[in-house]
């Protein structure tokens, strides 16, 4: 039982890494970023590259990966997505446009990555030793990734709750129009959120590359997971994303271990569809008025 719980938590940590960035991007900047998974893979590739080329630990590599990802995503928002936001007449129109644009972007990113790195599988061995908790063994790399995921989650939550910039961000998340009325520069905040989201996602990718086998085309799998978790948790609420990620992790592990591993993904979708049906705004979302 401990095994299921801990394995589930570790998996949930991984999922949180995948989804937290998208929550910021979708919740605050209102961009349904279908290129999220590609950004994650790019983070993983960066970590792989510094590890194999320079024997630099993927965790140390975060010092470079995160800021670079921030700048890249910030630029993507300012240059590519801002015009869409400007021209959108309604939130629905923006959703359609951003789905299309980021879908195109995801193609382009896969193209760039397979051009630069080839189409092959990427993996390496880092911290693959075992660590014993309550009599069962787990991969050190997963435990480390979980710890960092927790740090990021706690950091984000504290920042969003207790700083001026975080408050602005939450205000934009709740209502961009009202935020504008109280003098918040919505564009700047959205760009910041999008960049930050990208940085978190790339960080997740770098950590996940320690134990997942990646290739240039695999991003879409992560995008789907992230979408599910964000919607399940409630858009624009970081706690929701984390809770949803952990629930999903534990539920999948439970199904895989007790019922049938063949139903793992089916169970995830059933859970997700169930949440949507009975609580369409997500576990932590506000009831729309």
């Amino acid at each position, binding site marked *: 039982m401990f095994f299921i719980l801990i394995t589930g938590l570790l998996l949930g940590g991984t999922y949180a890494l995948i989804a937290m960035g998208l929550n910021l991007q979708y919740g605050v900047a209102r961009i349904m970023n279908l290129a999220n998974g590609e950004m994650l893979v790019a983070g993983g590739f960066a970590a792989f590259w510094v590890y194999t080329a320079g024997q630099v630990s993927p965790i140390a590599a975060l010092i470079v990966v995160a800021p670079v990802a921030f700048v890249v995503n910030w630029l993507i928002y300012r240059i590519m997505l801002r015009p869409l936001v400007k021209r959108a007449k309604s939130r629905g129109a923006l959703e359609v446009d951003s789905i299309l644009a980021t879908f195109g972007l995801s193609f382009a990113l896969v193209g760039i990555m397979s*051009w630069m790195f080839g*189409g092959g599988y990427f993996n390496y061995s880092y911290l693959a030793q075992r660590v014993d908790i309550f009599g069962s063994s787990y991969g050190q790399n997963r435990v480390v990734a979980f710890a960092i995921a927790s740090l990021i989650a706690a950091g984000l939550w504290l920042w969003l709750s207790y700083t001026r910039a975080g408050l602005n961000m939450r205000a934009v998340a709740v209502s961009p129009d009202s935020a504008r009325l109280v003098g918040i520069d919505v564009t700047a905040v959205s760009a910041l959120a999008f960049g930050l989201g990208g940085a978190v996602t790339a960080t997740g990718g770098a950590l996940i590359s320690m134990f*997942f086998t990646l290739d240039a085309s*695999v991003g879409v799998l992560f995008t789907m997971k992230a979408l599910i978790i964000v919607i399940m948790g409630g858009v624009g609420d970081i706690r929701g994303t984390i809770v949803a990620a952990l629930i999903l992790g534990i539920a999948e592990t439970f199904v895989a271990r007790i019922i049938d*591993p063949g139903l793992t993904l089916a169970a995830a979708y059933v859970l997700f569809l169930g949440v949507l049906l009975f609580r369409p705004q997500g576990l932590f979302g506000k009831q729309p008025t």
Partner: protein
Amino acid sequence: MKRRSLMTTVAAVAVMMGSLGAASAQDAIKLGAAAPKTGPLAGGADVTHWPAVRLWVHQTNEAGGLQLADGPALIELIEYDDQTNPQQAIQAAQRLATQDRVDFMVAPYSTGLNLAAAPIFSQLGYPQITGTNVTNQQPELSAQFPGMFFVLGRTGVMAEDTAQVLVDLRESGDIGNRVALVNVADAFGIEMSGISRAVLEENGFEIVYQTSYPLGTQDIAPIIDGAKAANPDAFIAWSYPGDTFALTDQAIVQDFAPSVFFTAVATAFPSYYGRFGQQAEGVMGMGGVNPDDPAFQAFAEAHQELAGQGPDFWASASTYATLEILGQAIEATGSRDRAVVMEYLQDNSNSYETVLGPVQFNDMNDNERYWTVGQWQDGVFRGVAARGRDGVSDVVLKDGWD
């Protein structure tokens, strides 16, 4: 790796420019190839398919091309990305045939894409010599598509031989009766697992744990935990690359070390040993080669040189062999006329010298001599079971991970 892709791009551009330019080498034999460069199977094609194809073209041209009746002809390779999409595979084959007017085509990569492209190959009269297609439907397929040839082997045989390895080990008293059997839940995994189970049970093995997991699963901890709890003597996983790595990784982490540890696709990849190093010793997988065979050694060396990576120890060689067979058929007939070459290929009295050893097709266009099970021994993935091949090595028991 980056440089390599860049170079191939430059080369491709150069070829394109060249073909746009004046004399597009009138006597070159055009060879078309459509296989994944993107999409879910791109990773596998990048290891197994593309380098082998390019290597054969490169070597053939280095050697002055193929000898036709009216003199030698170089090979011009035209590559397309089928995006791992059957729809695109069909269209790419059409395009190669009717727009680029290629003389011959390389068979696509993977079972599904080969089958999707089969009607087009057949309709247009191109021989389809497959090197990465494992199926049990040879009788039906060769009846429907008489130009389709099978080099890699039959699923049923692969599963039987894997079971046979266990039978042999049990008879020599090395392992007991308990087997854990898992599979990736797609057509390949389901078929292999079904046959293994039947054969193992026939032979009195006890399946103490059996399960499947969805395609794309990399969170495999619960499966290894379940398998470990069942305490088997042998662990057999009909897996794909991503999960092959994940299963091994988790087995190491949870210290699940049965005497036989078998994972399927990608176990034979050099990157498998690259990732797990010493820990991969004793792991078994599909395929295998005879690494002591000079023909294979030469192939591996040239592969390493051209592609910057070694071949995998299974289907790389069979992909390469499909082109050797095609080349030999062309040279034997001295013709680039597909109908003539096809007739030669369909004549089962002909045989071919390949990196796999001699190959001859039976009346179902099937090659009956191939490697079935391999095992990592001293950094090489040696064939430990085969049909009709020499140089089979002895199986060793896996002795823990550390």
